[in-house]
Every structure is written in C-alpha cells, then in structure tokens.
C-alpha cells in the first residue's frame, strides 16, 4: 500500500483529523494567550509574582508530554478522557514561551523611551498600553509562534487520551507497524507546523519596530 493510495482512500478521515487537530490547537492557543499575555503585563512590576509564575511555567514545560496527559486523566473537572483534558495539557505547555517573550518584550525597552514617557506625565497604565505593549508586540508574537509550533506537535499525543486529531493515525500506525499510516498523520502535522511558523513569522517581521 503506497502513501498516495492511503491518502486518496482515507482523505475524508484525514481531513476530519486535521480539523480536530486545528480545533485543539486554536482553542489551546487562545486560552494560553489569554493567560500569558496579561500575566506577562502584570509581572513587569511585581517581582515576587514574576518568580512564581516563571517557575510554574518552567515546571510544566519539563514534564514529559505523555506523562502530563496521563497525570491529568484522574483529576476531577479538568481531567478524564477526551479533548478537554488534552486542551488543559496543551495550554500548560504553551504558557512558558508566550509568558517569557511577553515579559522580555515588555522589559527590554530603551530606558530613555520609558523615561521620556514617565517625564511626559504618562500614568503607569498609559506607559503599558501606549509604549510597552506596542513596542513588545513582535516579541509577543514570536512567543506565540514558538508556542503554536510546539502545540501542533504535542497535540498529536492528545490522541492517546482520546482527543482525536492527527495523532490518531500515528498511534494506529505504530500499533499496525505501518509507516504509511504513521506518515498519514505525521506529514499533515508537519505541514501544519510549517505553515503556522511561516505565516506567523511573516506577521512578526512586519510588526517589528525596533
């Protein structure tokens, strides 16, 4: 059985898996961005919270992904089998790159610019929203880009806990000892990752102001 033949005969199934995969990634990324960017803004002026948030995000990053999915299954509310659990795990992985880039982007601004903003009588919020955030946006996007690529990859493992997605083919292929079936999941996942990387990289470049 050739790869092309498998793609041709299973195209509906593969397209459905791509869709599931994208839904997992988009929802996870939306939540991760919604947590990390505001958190990054808050920790700029709160060193204690910064240390705690960074440490936690780092710890999540170090847990092997398959183990993290396993740990989450027995937990009430966020655990169990299915997409919800997978999204929780994906969010935890995506936090660190976004949080770190947000923080770095917001804090590596030319001191003369920040001082000028202060001296012109901007309030702390005005400095954040009119100066820091616009100057940090390409950094933040770079973090989102890294996190998206990671999430697309890790989302293949979500199939192990019944969340569907392109990982379904990979696990099935491993069980069947069939490279063709593995590739039917792996190739679309790789293409998705490349597309995300390229398109976000394009926007990131256009947003660069410094």
């Amino acid at each position, binding site marked *: 059985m050739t790869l092309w033949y498998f793609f041709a005969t299973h195209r509906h199934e593969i397209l459905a898996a791509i869709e599931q995969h994208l839904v997992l990634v988009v929802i996870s990324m939306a939540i991760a961005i919604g947590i990390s960017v505001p958190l990054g803004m808050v920790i700029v002026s709160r060193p204690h919270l910064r240390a705690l948030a960074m440490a936690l995000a780092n710890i999540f990053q170090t847990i092997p992904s398959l183990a993290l999915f396993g740990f989450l299954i027995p937990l009430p509310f966020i655990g169990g089998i299915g997409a919800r659990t997978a999204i929780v795990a994906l969010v935890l992985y995506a936090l660190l790159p976004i949080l770190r880039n947000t923080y770095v982007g917001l804090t590596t601004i*030319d001191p*003369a*610019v*920040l*001082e*000028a*903003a*202060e*001296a*012109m*009588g*901007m*309030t702390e919020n*005005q400095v954040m929203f009119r*100066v820091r955030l*616009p*100057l940090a946006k390409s950094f933040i996007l770079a973090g989102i880009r890294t996190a998206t690529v990671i999430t697309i990859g890790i989302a293949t493992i979500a199939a192990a806990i019944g969340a569907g997605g392109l990982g379904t083919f990979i696990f099935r292929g491993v069980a069947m000892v069939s490279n063709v079936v593995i590739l039917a999941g792996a190739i679309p996942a790789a293409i998705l990752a490349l597309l995300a990387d390229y398109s976000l990289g394009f926007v990131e470049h256009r947003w660069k*102001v*410094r």
Partner: protein
Amino acid sequence: MPEPAPTPEPTIEFRHASYIIPANQGRSILNDISFRIAEGEVVSIIGRSGSGKTSLLKLINRIHRHTSGDVLVGGKSVSAWDVIRLRRGIGYVVQETGLFPHLTVRENVCVVPELEQWPKDSSRQRFQEVMALVGLNPNEYAERFPRELSGGQRQRVGVARALAADPRILLMDEPFGALDPITRAELQKVFLDLSRRVSKTIVLVTHDLREALLLGTRAVLLDRGCIAASAAPEEFLKLEQPAVREFIAASELRLGQPA
C-alpha cells in the same frame, strides 16, 4: 482647548535639598542644594560627569525624589503636586531623545496634547507651530518615523515634543551632546532663537562650558553634589573659586575640539 488645567508657575526653588540613594550604601548624590530660578531664566547646570547635574534636573519633575530639604515648583513642593499634572506642565528633553520608535513624528510631538485630550484641530495646529519653531517642515516630517531621521532631526523633534503642550518650564539634559559639531552649533542657534521667543524658564544640563555660557542667562557649577558657583556668563569666567578655575582649566584643555 479644554479648560486650562493647573500648570506650574515657572519658578523653581531648591531649599536645602539633598538626594541620597539608600540602595547605594547611602551614597550622597546631591548635598544641601539651595538656589532659586526665576521666571524666564535660562540656567545652565555644568559640572563634570558624576557631579549630580542630571539628578538635580530629575528632582524637578520628580523622576527622582529628594531625600531631604525641599524642591518647589511654582511655589509648591513637588511632593505636594499631583505628579502627572506636574510633569505634563514641564517639557523634558534628553540626549537620547527618547522618541517613541513606534509613533510617527506627528504622533510623537502630539503625545502630551493627546494625553490632555486637546481637540484634533488644536493639536494639529500646534504641531505646525512647534515644528516651525525647531526649524523642520511640518508637512515633510509628519508621517516619518524616528528611525528615518538623522540625529539632528531627531533632537529637533525631541525639542518640538517638549514644547508641544506649551509648558512654561523646560528641562534639558545634554540636549545637543550626541551631535556632530556643525549640527550642534546649528541647534544651539535654534535654541537661542527659541529661548528668546518663547519666554520659558529653562534648565539646561551640559558638561560643555562654552555651551553653558552661550545659552544660559546664568551658569551654575556643580561639584561633587554641591553648588560651587552661580553667576551670569560674563562674570563666570572671572570667578576665583578653585572649583571654577579647575573646571575652566579643564575645559580649555579641550578647547578646539568640541567636548
């Protein structure tokens, strides 16, 4: 323009003001500074690096807080001022310009008018005026970004931005320090012209004696955090204090090359 918000009267007074950085083993930056700057004066603060010039300037708009004594702007202690109101009434120019890289020249210049919610027309008109004051064609530069300008042009925009909300006090920290000699002389001329026309109280920090005497109506020499001398430019060179002689001698060594 909306109802005029209270802006500081353009007088500045230091009363035994000291500035000590506690984090830095209580290192004393400024010591028992007392002097008064009247409305319309152009005071040049000179001194070598580390003499406390910049800190003195920053005590005025409360970027730094004096640790004892008092600093008064418009007869009122800076501690008693609402810091936002105080700063919006004081123009501020620094050597590095601190222009916002993500904003156009027009947006940079109109930051304070916009923060103060001036009507669009007023701030547009004001943009035209201040750009003309610093000798830049408003229409040509309005939509450019700071990175597209030369050092001299950036510095002019920085001055225009400081003047935009028509503050009565202007603080300038080595405004021409990073420029080549020709651009520098050009901007000094613009400054002289401007300071005669706009009648503001100006405090100018510089380490260049010639610049201080050329631009100021008074020169104040700082030496290790204390005021060593304060005199009109024509008298300054005749002062006998050792600190003054030393500073003049050091400056003369550099004469010929723009410091």
